[in-house]
């Protein structure tokens, strides 16, 4: 067509497959971690401390990506770290999505008092620096996997709420929504059958993005030592350790960083790719 939809489609396809592939690798690593990890991720061996990755002089076979200062295998810790990352991504992502999208739909479609209250709440939430809010919450309710997930949901529901509300408002102005009213649909049915399908692609894209953000927040909390207990391997924890020994053993920082980078990038791109895939106008 005139606006070059062909090119958009091709690009969307490539990014959907590439990001999907990486996320599948991470998911497989998480599920089968005990089977694929070459070592026990917690096993310390000070004799094998700070071994470099396999291609460098002084590398030890069997420790592909080297070891950290306590002699723990970096690759095994990465693989086991995927478990925490994925659990946080799924649970926190879906939790935020459900709460935020529901409130956003209600505010955007029903307007009135519901909208005023919800919007004011969002305003208040937006006045907090999110990371500081998260750190504060964890400090108050204590560390642990559940706390991390609760903190992410409590803080980030506004992301869904804002976007979904705006999108719902847009859709509510369209004549097909009026048309549904003329057909005698109840407001609830109009919202679910006419508006929701048009907002859904945005929600899906946001959900995927949010999963990436959840992984990052977990990493940041681990980085300031406030996430999961320290003996469980997490990517953020590895980065915190790596940051301390960056001049002696860069690989302890670089490998978890690359993993985190690719995962976050993939979540975001996967969401955008899905959104384009969903769009009947592009399809």
């Amino acid at each position, binding site marked *: 067509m005139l606006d070059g939809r062909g090119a958009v489609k091709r690009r969307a396809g490539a990014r959907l497959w590439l990001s999907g592939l990486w996320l599948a690798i991470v998911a497989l690593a998480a599920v089968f971690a005990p089977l694929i990890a070459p070592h026990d991720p917690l096993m310390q061996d000070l004799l094998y401390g700070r071994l470099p990755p396999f291609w460098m002089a002084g590398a030890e076979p069997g420790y592909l990506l080297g070891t950290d200062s306590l002699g723990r295998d970096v690759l095994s810790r990465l693989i086991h770290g995927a478990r925490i990352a994925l659990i946080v991504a799924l649970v926190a992502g879906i939790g935020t999505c459900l709460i935020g999208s529901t409130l956003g739909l209600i505010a955007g479609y029903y307007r009135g008092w519901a909208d005023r209250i919800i919007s004011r709440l969002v*305003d208040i939430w937006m006045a907090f620096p999110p990371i500081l809010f998260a750190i504060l919450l964890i400090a108050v309710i204590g560390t642990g996997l559940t706390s991390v997930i609760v903190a992410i949901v409590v803080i980030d529901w506004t992301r869904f709420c804002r976007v979904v509300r705006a999108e719902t408002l847009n859709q509510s102005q369209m004549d097909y929504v009026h048309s549904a009213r003329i057909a005698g649909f109840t407001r609830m049915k109009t919202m679910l059958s006419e508006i929701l399908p048009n907002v859904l692609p945005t929600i899906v894209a946001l959900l995927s993005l949010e999963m990436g953000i959840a992984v990052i927040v977990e990493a940041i909390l681990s980085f300031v030592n406030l996430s999961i207990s320290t003996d469980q391997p997490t990517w953020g924890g590895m980065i915190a350790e790596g940051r301390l020994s960056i001049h002696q053993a860069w690989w302890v920082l670089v490998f978890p960083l690359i993993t985190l980078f690719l995962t976050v990038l993939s979540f975001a791109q996967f969401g955008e790719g899905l959104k384009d895939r969903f769009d009947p106008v592009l399809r």
Partner: protein
Amino acid sequence: MPILRVVLSRFLTTLITLIGVAIIVFVVVRVVPGNPIAMMLPPGASTADIERLSALYGLDKSIFEQFTIWFGNVLQGDFGTSISTRQPVLDLVLGRLPATLELSLMALIIAVILGMGAAIIGTRYRGRRTETGVDLANGIGLSVPDFLWGLLLIILLGVVWPLFPISGRVSPRLDLPFSTQFYLIESIFRLRFDLTGNLLRHMFMPALALALPLAAIIAQLLKQSLKETVNLDYAVLARTKGYSETRVILSEALPNALLPTLTLIGVQFTFLIGGTVIIERLFSYEGLGNMAVDAVINRDLPLIQGIVILFALIFTAINLLVDMTYAFLNPRLRHA
């Protein structure tokens, strides 16, 4: 006068927001399970200590009374005394604020320059490889948060190719003649450009890490808005008058495309400032954010409250400012 109305009603909602923030800050640290006094004190404090503190904070009164007392004090600028340093919270917080402001503004400037540049170039060469490149860079910039950019910069420009220092606000061995905490600005006024250079070198990586996601957002939104605008009738009309493409983008499309971008920059700038919390930590930059993390780790309750309230004030002020600017720049509102 629509402008006056916009200004006043925004002002009112801002007030409501701030009161909401105060309530939540109060509730989070008081009502949540766990003895707040125990939280405030280092482990192993005596019963006498606990009682003394309870009386000091009026914890024997009802929650509502406690809130009124605390909020009344806050309104008078009294945020209490830091538990870890025994200094007034307000002094501590204001002492660190300039460092964070300088860092955030520098990041904002970098983001606006990078973002606008990318958007204009991407629009000028739309449909070509250049645009694909800009889009790709934007996609990555949008997806990867400041924390990861910071780490990446540390490895690349701090370790592999050590161009910039990876920690601190200024080299510790330097003599600092400053009388305010606005080091960067003061160094320029005192014509101590050696210090300016040193400060900028320290600031560069954290500021860039904060700026990259915002730059990508600005670039993406402005480019989208520019691309729509350059196809609008008035831009086409300008082209038929004999103007070049670059001229059409800069003088016809840009003024109209900037307005929606501006509102977005407001919200996103608050996100950027929020990002200083972790970026300052990462680069051991002595600002408000770094102090906040320390306060949480030390369980310094009054300090945490003070910092959060200050952040909230800054955030709402920025949003207010952006809304006002928008109202004044928009000819529809200005001349209605």
